[in-house]
């Protein structure tokens, strides 16, 4: 593993939000390395900077200082359009609120990242169906989000995160809006993805969820407080 380039290489990353004269440092110097195939849980109380960290990892925001090399590419100085392309090809997002487009069927929701990646229609359909089959929703492809349960919606979202074959899957409190049975299903699904060799970063404040990850990182006040190695 050591000879392979890390998926995530954060060096001394800070993020300062300015609103008027007030400057709030959300991240105060984070250095983090995640290798391919790792499953990392980022934990911390609210206000600890874990959401900001996820946004930077997801290329939704750029750091105020420090460097971020994703999959061998320095993304800390990219412009909006380049970042969009990176998000499109290298990152799959899973959100707490699912964030599916209510007017589109499950299939078309999953096709969306492929459309932005410029994949042709026939191939797109095939890959989206495959991803939906992978999360166990092969029989629900023509349903709209409103016709699916919370757990099913989150599985559609995971299919959408997988469909572009990204280097990194980022999940922000993926079980936060689910009942415990559905949450267990989703955790199981993420475990399967990890077992299949995917790199996952999971943001959560639930220790039970974090336990399934191989490694957990604790944040407090914008700094990494502790790293816990997995219990064997």
């Amino acid at each position, binding site marked *: 593993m050591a000879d392979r380039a890390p998926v995530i290489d954060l060096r001394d990353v800070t993020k300062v939000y300015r609103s008027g004269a007030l400057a709030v440092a959300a991240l105060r110097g984070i250095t983090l390395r995640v290798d391919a195939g790792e499953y990392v849980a980022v934990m911390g109380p609210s206000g600890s900077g874990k959401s900001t960290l996820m*946004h930077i990892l*997801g290329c*939704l*925001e750029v750091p105020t200082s420090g460097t971020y090399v994703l999959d061998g590419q320095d993304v800390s100085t990219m412009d*909006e*359009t380049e970042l*969009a*392309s990176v*998000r*499109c*090809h290298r990152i799959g*997002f899973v*959100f707490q*609120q699912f*964030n599916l*487009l209510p*007017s*589109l069927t499950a299939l078309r929701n999953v096709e*969306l*990242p492929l*459309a*932005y*990646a*410029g994949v042709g229609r026939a191939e797109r359909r095939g890959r989206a169906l495959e991803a939906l089959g992978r999360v166990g929703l092969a029989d629900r492809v023509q349903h709209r989000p409103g016709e699916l349960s919370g757990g099913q919606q989150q599985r559609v979202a995971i299919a*959408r995160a997988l469909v*572009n074959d990204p280097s990194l899957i980022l999940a922000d409190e993926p079980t936060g809006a689910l009942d415990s049975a559905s949450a267990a299903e989703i955790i199981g699904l993420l475990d399967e993805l990890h077992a299949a060799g995917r790199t996952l970063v999971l943001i959560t404040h639930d220790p039970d969820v974090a336990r399934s990850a191989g490694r957990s990182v604790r944040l407090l006040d914008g700094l990494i407080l502790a790293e816990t190695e997995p219990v064997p």
Partner: protein
Amino acid sequence: MTWLETLRTSLDAIRTRRLRSGLTVLGIMIGIAAVILTVGLGQGAQNQVSAEINALGTNLLTVSPGSATTASGIRSGFGSASTLTESDAAALASRTVAPDVADVAPVVTSSGTLTDTLNSNNWTTAVDGTTPSWAAVRDRTVAQGRFLDRQDVTDHAAVAVLGPDTASELFRGFDPVGQSVDVNGVPMTVVGVLDSVGSTSSSTASSQDDLVIVPISTAVQRLFGPSSLSSILVKSTSGGTLSAAYQEVDDELLALHKITNPADADFTIASEASLVSTATSVDRTLTVLLGGIAGISLLVGGIGVMNIMLVSVTERVREIGLRKALGATPALVRRQFLVEASVLGLSGGGLGTLLALLGAGLLPHAIGYPIALSPLAVVGALAIAIAIGLVFGVYPASRAARLAPIDALRTE
């Protein structure tokens, strides 16, 4: 993402907001229909006036007695002096004096009460005493019988030619030719009926179809008593020689009346061409005015598009953020909203054009005015509709494109 997919996405977005999109489209639709119809109405009125005036002959000059200013500087109206004579008319008819004049017709006009001796129907209308050349000068032909001839004038014959409307008012379907009609109590024989210049509602045209023509000698001797001419109608050899003819008539009459200063002229020459330009400029003013009002309604429609697009952007912050997180570039987001706005504009334009075509078919029956729709105006209106969508869509679209994906996703 291809343009087709962007279009499909935009149509989806419009479909999910049916009522609001429908109302926005309605605003554009009314604006476009109003613009097309007012322009069509103005164009129709212009065509109608031009057609009527063309029917009178655009190479026609009308010489009237009197002038704008008398020698003493007091304004006296058009036709207030009695200075034109038949010998003036005869002089103008000479090809050597006025080579660009084709025909000259002296006219004595008065009103007369007609009674047909068959049914005793009464009708009051204009009676024109003139010469046979009147028909050539006015480009008129007879539908039935014959027009006046030289002999009628020489003989002071008691004959009359009726306008088509006059004939039908008096004889109500009977053949008027050969019948007798009393003009101010003097019995006359109807020898002919003029062709109609067109049955339009305008007052100019109806007076062209409602009149009685008698020989000028008969009018002076037996109907009105000795009087000077009401006007001399002069026809130039062609439309292009009208101004040359004008100059010749002016010079000759000044010489005949021994007037040295043209400003003291005791006659006025009016051309139909000046009537045409007056009438069309009045119509154009109206078209511009109405078109301006219609344009404002179109502008309001455009602001409606901007409004709905801004609301749409605000409402869809999450969607925009998500699309960006999934890899939509700012340019793609902008394009999506622009396409959406132009689809709204285009549908409004298309429906507005249909409404205008429908209105152009139905309105003339209700208001009695023709509407001339030119394909150019329709294409122009459609282009304006798309342009409105684009122009008023630019601001909302760039707002959407500038949204930071993270701010967008954060909105709960």
